[in-house]
């Protein structure tokens, strides 16, 4: 009886839709839903043949790679120094964590405003320095824009995990190394960095998942997948094909592909957590 509320909610809004997605992915219907035809795996074959889908995959790959690498790199540097600082550590932490609270779409709007080709402050500065910047026309600029916005928003999350990881490393280890004459640089690479590897790996998975799924708001607000389709990540494409282009079958097939990716990522993560990389 106690389970009833959760079971009702998840079966209604989780299993039923997920099942529907599977069924729909095998069907083809016209835009008004008047006729539905079973087409087997045709939707998947179409996806496989569809160049724009492959491109979208590539876009998502590049995007998540940048987000993960930049986000993890920058936050590791910040966390390392925050761990060193004794005075004011809490203030720095407070000042660095709040972007977590900013909605992706709001982050997208804010960055769009900063980098808007005609009125943005930063794009003005860039142009003044001699960089051509136009996120509306140049797809590289558009990609850079959403990567920056996504990294900015995810920074606090990575930062907190690295900081927690660094603080859980026993001080005695670092002291011992210092007595043996290892400098700060050497200590970081031989002690702290290897001991952080579980955290880093975990964050890598989380950041990829984040870049795949939670950045829809940023993309929609900042670039709308444009220019052309150059920043249309997979989730954006599911939304666009399903709700704007009304290709329900194709969209459902894409959902299924996404589900498989998430499940795979989750399995990787759990495998890893069970084993725990130890040194």
């Amino acid at each position: 009886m106690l389970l009833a509320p959760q079971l009702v909610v998840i079966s209604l809004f989780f299993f039923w839709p997920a099942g529907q997605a599977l069924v729909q992915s095998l069907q083809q219907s016209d835009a008004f839903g008047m006729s539905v035809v079973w087409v087997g795996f045709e939707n998947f074959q179409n996806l496989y043949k569809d160049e724009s889908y492959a491109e979208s995959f590539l876009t998502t790959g590049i995007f998540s790679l940048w987000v993960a690498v930049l986000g993890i790199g920058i936050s590791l540097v910040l966390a390392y120094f925050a761990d060193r600082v004794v005075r004011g550590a809490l203030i720095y932490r407070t000042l660095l964590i709040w972007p977590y609270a900013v909605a992706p779409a709001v982050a997208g709007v804010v960055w769009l405003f900063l980098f808007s080709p005609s009125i943005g402050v930063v794009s003005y500065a860039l142009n003044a320095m001699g960089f051509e910047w136009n996120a509306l026309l140049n797809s590289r600029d558009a990609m850079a824009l959403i990567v920056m916005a996504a990294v900015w928003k995810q920074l606090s999350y990575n930062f907190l995990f690295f900081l927690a990881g660094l603080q859980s490393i026993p001080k005695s280890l670092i002291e011992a190394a210092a007595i043996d004459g290892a400098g700060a640089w050497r200590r970081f690479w031989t002690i702290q960095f290897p001991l952080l590897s579980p955290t880093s790996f975990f964050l890598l998975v989380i950041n990829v998942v984040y870049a795949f799924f939670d950045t829809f708001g940023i993309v929609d607000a900042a670039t709308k997948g444009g220019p052309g389709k150059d920043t249309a990540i997979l989730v954006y494409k599911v939304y666009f094909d399903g709700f704007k282009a009304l290709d329900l079958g194709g969209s459902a097939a894409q959902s299924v592909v996404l589900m498989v990716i998430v499940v795979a990522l989750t399995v990787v993560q759990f495998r890893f957590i069970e084993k725990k990389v130890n040194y």
Partner: protein
Amino acid sequence: MIERNRFLDWVSHGVLLLGVAVVAFPVYVTFVASTHTMQEVVQVPMPLLPGEHFLENYASALLGDRNGSGSTASVARMMGVSLVCALLIAFGKIAISLLSAFAIVYFKFPFRMAVFWMIFVTLMLPVEVRIGPTYKVVSDLGMLNSFAGLTLPLIASATATFLFRQFFMTVPDELVEAARIDGAGPMRFFKDVLVPLSVTSMAALFVIQFIYGWNQYLWPLLVTTNENMYPVVIGIKRMISGGDAQTEWNIVMATAMLAMVPPAMVVIGMQKWFVKGLVDTEK
């Protein structure tokens, strides 16, 4: 501190200050833009010091009395919608997961493991992945443009259940036995022992879920077609009508500030639980 190294100390503070500045810069510009008139904002380059139209812009955003080309709905109303949604999601999730975690940990019943796995798989798929079909279910149930439609599908995931399960398993058996000897039934035990024990976990989860709920974008974008039901995050998007000249950037930025403040306050005000919640839910 392991060694005294003046130089590195300075570097540390320097890097951190730089980090804070970079992180804060976008929001500073947003704030500045929200205090100028529209003409001042669209000038190139826009002024970088706060202007004098703070009250005017915020009042105009909150009340919705303006005539731009984008959406002109009242932001106060939207913030209300966002708040209700975020609270419903936070409390709804905590309530149902508390109950089901209790059932899974303390009762032996047939299909216990099956139920456990059913809940477990929901962890894997975010709403974004199953938007199409979920939308259909919600519209079949007639829940478009309603709070139920906005929140229920987002409650349907199991993060919180796992956190509570993990926590309940650390509660010593002696407590259960003591409660039984004192003649407390299972519900009594739940109410008087487990719930008070898990208050910190609940606080931690509350912060995370509140932000999650407040920041939802894709889902509300689909289920709300009526301006009265826009959460503030959607509202902002609708105000940008395309074309830099027509968009009232000062109002948009004022709204963006308003949309950021409540979750930021929750994060900073409940920092301790926030950090705990973040670390616990993901492990």
